[in-house]
């Protein structure tokens, strides 16, 4: 695992040096006295929990925010980054979590948007633009036509375009903000190949990720942020995995997966031969009370699509669903909720809460049939329901009438989960329940999931993270290309077996 810093010489001077950077927002001290160094030809990992100040630092570095104090030096010369353009001109570029590109524009236009090559009349030189874009794409081994519209590309290909865009402005400092969040196993490998090439080309890379395996795989240096301060930095080969976790959360995380032993009861949900015209084929499963069933696979294996069909968002072409021994037909989410199946979607921020609505209205929304009488809503009942689940989930809010949009991210998540628990489901489907959240919050989600199982709920957990699958599941179903590629019991399950089943590669190992 510990990659040897290949081309490292201890004398490499940092290309970028930030010292004493502070930034305060009304009521929040986002960064205080932070330092960061980036070296050419090396990858520096920026690690920290959500809200540790990583994004603020990135925004300062890309000229979007202005620091209250401190200095930024490039090549030993102090610089100012008053605007995004200024940062670009100094060779700083960022590839974001959700890369901001334009669906309706071609690949070449996306790469050169804002700095299109001009001909002598000041008009866009299309030939030069396509030629240069093609050269850059060729340089990173991306076989994409420059005339393709972005909307026709896969997520991984879009990342390649984003990287090409970064290269097109002749960047020397490349910031990658969770670039692997939306990528599959294979695509991550490809991305790492590109990072290697960027390294060889002498770029200084800042790599932000929640995934420690990745950090160890491609980074040489690290910086850990906690609560807006830099709490540690140095060479990765001088620290252990545990050291980093300790720095990051400021305490020892003894057990990452607090799975409690739950009593496994009768079969609650039985799915038989579930098929979809395009997304999945012949999926069958049995789920018992108190059981956590892991659903593993690469991105695009059809796991979410299967769960959405189970929840009535899309419609299967064949197959039956039996809930508590009764055959049910789920034609819409409303049917599923009535039957006792709920689905907590992957992008809880975007798909979960209605931010303009109050906490009460959000929590009661799927339960309105229960809280209303003769089609008239009863506010008192709704408040009672919301109060109960706010208490159970330890929701921090000034008032239950305040809009969900005014809550912090963590509390918004609690509202989303509370709204589903309030429907008193028998089966809860959690799609990537900890994606993109920090280690501290992850442990809380896992503890909560475990508690639900103990209370007799049947849980289906879709996850792409092997440690999570291994740590939380009683049983694991692996899907590949829309089909079931294996069913595994918790005992004796290895990461290699999961990856083999998911990739279909007999020799593959983690």
């Amino acid at each position, binding site marked *: 695992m510990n990659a040897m810093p290949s081309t490292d010489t201890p004398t490499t001077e940092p290309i970028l040096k930030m010292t004493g950077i502070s930034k305060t927002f009304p009521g929040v001290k986002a960064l205080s006295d932070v330092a960061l160094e980036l070296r050419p030809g090396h990858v520096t990992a920026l690690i920290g929990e959500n809200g540790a100040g990583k994004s603020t630092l990135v925004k300062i570095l890309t000229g979007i925010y202005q620091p209250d104090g401190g200095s930024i030096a490039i090549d030993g010369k102090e610089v100012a980054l008053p605007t995004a353009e200024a940062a670009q001109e100094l060779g700083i570029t960022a590839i974001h979590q959700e890369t901001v590109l334009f669906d309706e524009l071609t690949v070449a236009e996306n790469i050169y948007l804002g700095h299109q090559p001009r001909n002598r009349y000041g008009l866009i030189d299309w030939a030069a633009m396509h030629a240069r874009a093609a050269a850059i794409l060729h340089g990173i081994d991306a076989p994409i036509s420059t005339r393709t519209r972005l909307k026709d590309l896969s997520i991984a290909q879009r990342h390649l375009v984003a990287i090409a865009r970064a290269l097109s402005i002749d960047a020397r400092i490349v910031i990658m903000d969770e670039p692997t969040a939306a990528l599959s196993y294979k695509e991550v490998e490809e991305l790492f190949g590109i990072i290697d090439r960027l390294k060889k080309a002498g770029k200084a890379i800042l790599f932000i990720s929640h995934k420690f395996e990745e950090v160890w795989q491609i980074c040489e240096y690290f910086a850990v942020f906690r609560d807006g301060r830099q709490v540690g930095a140095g060479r990765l080969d001088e620290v252990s995995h545990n050291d980093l976790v300790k720095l990051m959360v400021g305490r020892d995380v003894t057990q990452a997966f607090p799975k409690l032993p739950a009593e496994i009861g009768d079969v609650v949900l039985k799915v038989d031969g579930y098929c979809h015209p395009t997304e999945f084929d012949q999926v069958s499963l049995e789920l018992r009370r108190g059981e956590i069933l892991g659903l593993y696979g690469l991105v695009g294996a059809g796991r979410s699509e299967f769960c959405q069909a189970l929840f009535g968002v899309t419609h299967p072409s064949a197959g039956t669903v039996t809930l508590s021994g009764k055959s049910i037909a789920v034609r819409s989410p409303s049917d599923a909720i009535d039957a006792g199946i709920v689905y907590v979607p992957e992008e809880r921020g975007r798909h979960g809460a209605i931010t*303009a609505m109050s906490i009460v*209205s959000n929590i009661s929304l799927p339960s309105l049939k229960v809280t*209303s009488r003769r089609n008239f809503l009863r506010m008192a009942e709704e408040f009672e329901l919301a109060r109960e689940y706010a208490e159970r989930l330890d929701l921090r809010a000034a008032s239950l009438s305040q809009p969900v949009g005014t809550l912090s991210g963590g509390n918004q998540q609690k509202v989303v989960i509370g*709204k589903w628990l309030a429907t008193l489901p028998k089966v809860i489907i959690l799609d990537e329940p900890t994606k993109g959240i920090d280690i501290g919050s992850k442990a809380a989600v896992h503890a909560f999931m475990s508690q639900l199982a103990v209370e007799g709920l049947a849980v289906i957990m879709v996850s792409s993270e092997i440690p999570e699958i291994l740590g939380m599941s009683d049983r694991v179903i692996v899907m590949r290309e829309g089909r079931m590629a294996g069913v595994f019991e918790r005992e004796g399950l290895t990461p290699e077996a999961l990856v083999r089943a998911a990739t279909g590669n007999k020799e593959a190992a983690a």
Partner: protein
Amino acid sequence: MTIVRSLLARREALLVLACLLLLAAITARFPAFSTPKNLAGVFNDTSILIMMALGQSAVILTKSIDLSVAANVALTGMTVAMLNHLVPGLPVFVLILVAIGMGMLLGAINGFLVWWLDIPAIVVTLGTMTIFRGLAFVESGGAWVNAHEMSPAFLELPRTLILGLPVLSWTGLLAIVLATLLFTRTGLGRAFYATGGNAVAAVYAGIDIGKTRFLAFVLSGTVAGLCGYLWVSRYAVAYVDVASGFELDTIAACVIGGVSTIGGVGTVGGVVLGALFLGIIKNALPVIGISPFWQMAISGAIIITAVVINARGERVKGRVILRRKELPL
């Protein structure tokens, strides 16, 4: 101080204040404007706008828009006026039922196109707006139906006084009460907010967003149909260009009243006050002797001001700077 500030933060309070300031300014020069009798007249005059703005707000809440409401008024108004002229013996309540039923049908056509064919509402209603007005021309041949061609009962109903207030005003008040109940006390009302607030989250919560939008259009069309009769009867004339451009007034009332143009935010109180604010201006400017052209410019300036205030209100809501900004759906 904080109480004052939190009160000012509410759109309704701000609008009440704006209306009062407006009235005070007008009264300073024309004391007669603020007599109870005249104010009741202003309300009566604004009743149709209030009703249609409420229907429009249901549509806007679901993140759609209904540009066809004024054309709906023209078509239903023309239809009942011609029916009244051709069959004078037909009781007025039958004509009202015809207006309501026809408006409902026209709204259902909009809703159906938006729901089943998944065409953006602005495109659908831009099309039906032209079609409805075209049909009004086709059925009338471009001719007017004048007061003397309408039956006395047809003309008198909106003017009939009950407890000192005309029926038209009572209809407006009833619409406010019903809309309040619908928006705040029924599952459908909640579905309007949820659909516009976050369509995907609404689907996951078991709401049929297509059906919700459909019903919002049906509601808006139904109200427009009823107002078709009220309009023609009140102004005692029906012609193809009746209520021309009025759809923009209904949208303006919503925007001034704090209804978010991207859906999910708005209150009945805000919409009513937004409509009244426009109503006061429309009634006061001629009194002060300002030309109709200035009136249009002033209305426009007020709409832009309201949008700026709306946008700032939304910005304050997103004060948690460290959270990633979500893309609007």
